[in-house]
């Protein structure tokens, strides 16, 4: 079984002296390919920080992160941009869509960055997230769930091997949230791509292949589900 992510003794310290915060304190993790993984933990536990490390948005204070055999933590600025472009798809709690671009254009903006037929792939992911009909609408004309689906489509359009989601359902109602989770779940179906989702909602964990619990910058528990629940079975 090949690994999607491996972190070794990963530490991230913000600030210094009195204001020092150990957001991550020696995190060592192994995440196999093709899994739908949930990172659980209370607010301030270090979930977003961990995701930022895997996504190469920030440099660690110490330790290493290895994604698909690439030592992310040792990449330079240019290589990291390239790495994010080829390997990672991001989905945020705040959808961060460009308000002056339509749904299709928001996705196309990223699709254009990689080789191949950007238009075809844009249509494909729009269809995948069920928004084929709404592609020409501006963000302001879409519901929260629809906007989040556009942002997922944007994350998927590059066909990344690892999708990182930071509370993707955080600003959505239950039903829409479940739809989004179902959508993310399907991404892992072919066994090649993995999805890492941060949440502090324990119930979501029931549908995960693997649940990682974080507290105070330390991994306190890793639980593997042999038979994850279907999102529709979840009760909130």
């Amino acid at each position: 079984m090949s690994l999607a992510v491996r972190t070794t003794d990963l530490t991230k310290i913000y600030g210094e002296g009195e204001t020092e915060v150990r957001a991550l304190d020696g995190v060592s993790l192994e995440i196999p390919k093709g899994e739908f993984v949930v990172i659980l933990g209370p607010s301030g536990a270090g979930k977003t920080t961990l995701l930022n490390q895997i996504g190469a948005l920030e440099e660690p204070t110490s330790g290493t992160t290895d994604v698909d055999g690439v030592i992310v933590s040792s990449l330079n600025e240019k290589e990291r941009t390239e790495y994010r472009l080829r390997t990672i798809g991001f989905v945020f709690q705040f959808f961060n869509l460009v308000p002056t671009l339509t749904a299709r254009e928001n996705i196309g903006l990223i699709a254009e960055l990689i080789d191949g037929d950007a238009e075809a792939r844009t249509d494909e992911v729009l269809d995948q997230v069920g928004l084929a009909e709404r592609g020409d609408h501006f963000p302001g004309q879409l519901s929260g769930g629809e906007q989040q689906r556009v942002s997922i489509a944007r994350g998927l359009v590059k066909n990344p091997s690892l999708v990182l989601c930071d509370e993707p359902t955080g600003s959505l109602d239950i039903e829409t949230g479940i739809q989004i989770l179902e959508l993310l779940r399907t991404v892992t179906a072919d066994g090649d791509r993995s999805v890492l989702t941060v949440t502090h909602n324990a119930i979501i964990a029931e549908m995960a292949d693997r649940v990682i619990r974080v507290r105070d910058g330390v991994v306190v528990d890793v639980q593997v589900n042999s038979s994850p629940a279907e999102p529709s079975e979840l009760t909130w």
Partner: protein
Amino acid sequence: MSYLATKRSRDFRRSRWQFIAVFITIALGVVMFGASYDSYRNLNVSYNGTYDRLHFADMTVTGADPGFADTAAAVPGVAVAEERAQADIPFSIDDTVLIGRIVTMPSDGQPEVNQVDVTDGAYLSPSDPTGVLIETHLAEQFDLGVGDTFEIATGAGWTTVTVRGIAVSPEYLWPARSRQEFFSLPGTFGVAFVSADAVAAAAPEATANQVVMRYDEGADRVTVDAAVTDAANAAHAADIMTQADQPSNAGLDLDLKGFEQMAIAFPILFLIAAGMAAFILLTRIVYTQRSQIGTLRASGMSRSKLTWHYLSYGLILGTAGAIVGTILGIAAGWGITGMYTQSLGIPDTIRELRWSTAVVGILFGVVTGALAALAPALAVFHASPAEAMRGEVPTTGGGHSLVETVIPPLRRLPVRWLMVLRGVGRNKLRSLSTMLGVVLALTLVLSAWGMIDTVRTLLDRQFNEIDLSDATALADRPVDDDLVAVIAGVDGVAVAEPVITLPATAKFSGDSYGTQLQAYVKDTRVRGFLTDDGALPSDGILAGVSLKDEIGVDVGDTITITFGTLETSITGPIRGFVTEPMGTVLYMERDTLLAALAAADPAVPETTLGNPTVTTVATAFVDGVDRDAVMERIHDVDGVISVVDSREVYDLVQQFMGLFYAFIGIMIVFGGAMAFALIFNTISVNVAERSTEYATMRANGLSNRRVAALITGENVLLVSLGIIPGLIVGYLAAAWMMSTYSSDMIKFNLEMRPWTLVLAAIAMIIVALLSVIPGIRTVRRLNIVEVVRERAI
């Protein structure tokens, strides 16, 4: 088109009014540069074209010893030295007698130096001894055409001459009689070119009294000027005038200076304002888009691509403004050149397409745009992609405003007014830029307005405090007590005094300055002297203050005065200096001067002082009389040949000011536009940034009017804060500008009326109120639901 480009064009559209405001400001700055610089250069080239073509003299020496022409021609660097005669004598045209000037020319062909363009009729001819050429301003003023006749006063009385042709002369493009009578206008002064033999009869004392020179091409002007000056001094010259000092040329130069200044100072003001406005706008755009920027970076878009994307906003804006501005500017420059040469009657209009102007203009715009976008783009470059994960963060912490801290009771104001106070400090850079906009606009407006105020004040001073006369009578004989007494007795005349006006040269330790000596009776009532006691000293000379610099004299020094028309000289001590707006003349008491002349070697008796322009009778009228009728009656006095109305000059100068008013109008409009653009942009950005707040306030039941009052209050407060430094900077800028115009001919010390400052401040407040309107409309149209939703995007 790439999606980023689509995004950019939609960003442009979204904030189109702000972008248009910046675009217009950049374009205006570049237009001002192009128009003023090109017209400055074109006019320079046009003058010089005329000067070269007509062989305008490089040097004019008057009253040197006979044979000086040969001496001058031998000076290294002098190509040609030519003799001619020049004399100021009365002309009588229709019923008017004016001070005329005759200048001799060979009758068989144009002279080597100071040729003329004959625009109508024909050049002088040996077969037509009474045929003269008249200078074009004189022809225009009296509507004289070829074949018309008028009279000139010669030694033998009035002689009739015929207009043979109308001429444009490089010496009289600006028709000034002398540096002292810079504003001598058509109607009071005119020039005629006559054949050399004719002058012998007309003014025997003026035979071949002048040598005009052209220098070798490429000669070093300074060296040759100095050499000729030495030679002329050695030959006892009465007046030595370089091309730079020549009144017409100096006048045109002074005029051009205005263009030069506009070509540099004003465009810079505009471009600073435009750059600031663009900076504010782009910073705001980058700020609101920072989470999108983070997301794009997180998604693998390269840093440089995004940085370039935002930099391109400024570059596009700058380039567009610059191109439009350059095209309009060059076109305007051409138009101005044509209008100018036409209105001044410059015979040559040379317009050159200068690529340098276009290149510099475009560079101005592009650099402004690029600099404005640089800081925001760098912020993008250094933005952390991790920010995208953090969502919205409040930008600045809250806190009490400075005034609240200084005046604690203010804290008890209603909260919404505290908001106004705190709003000023909320985004310091933006508040500063609003203030800067006000400062720049006030600088522009005040430097134009200051010029008007100064000229008006100085004119008032010249005609109400210095020249107190109402009219001056010229007689056909040397003025004597009898004539003065008769004129004093004319109904409506309150004062009549004899006045002596002599062309004179003041000399002190090797330096000399050509000017005029005016002599008035003791306790004169037709002239005011701006000294401490306002009196004319009885035992010395009062001089214009520029004489200090011109020949380095001070109070107590004894100067020598020579006279262009009299073969004698006198000496006397300087008793004081007067600061007068126009000219730098010498004053003496009449009796003192007459005594000095009588004691001089050779002695000059009063009766031989010269032609009617030397001894005149100045009069002041009884208040409220019919001026025209009084002048009519003076004219009827036996022996009076002409009455010159002092007020007419004043009125003509006032008319002349019409041009200035047009100029200031344009400046105020431009300054207002600039202030508007900057204030409008800052306010729009402020309102956009706070739309959530305003929407929330509206949702909580605050009325539209109250929100509008808040926005207005905050911005009027900001503008008011800018007004104080703006008035100070504007005043200083105006003073500096005026000082660059000052010379011995015209003294411009800034005289700004307090009202001007008040009006300028009020104008700024009005601009502030106008610029708030679009912001208020935005808030009124704010869709509360949409704003709240956009936050989640």
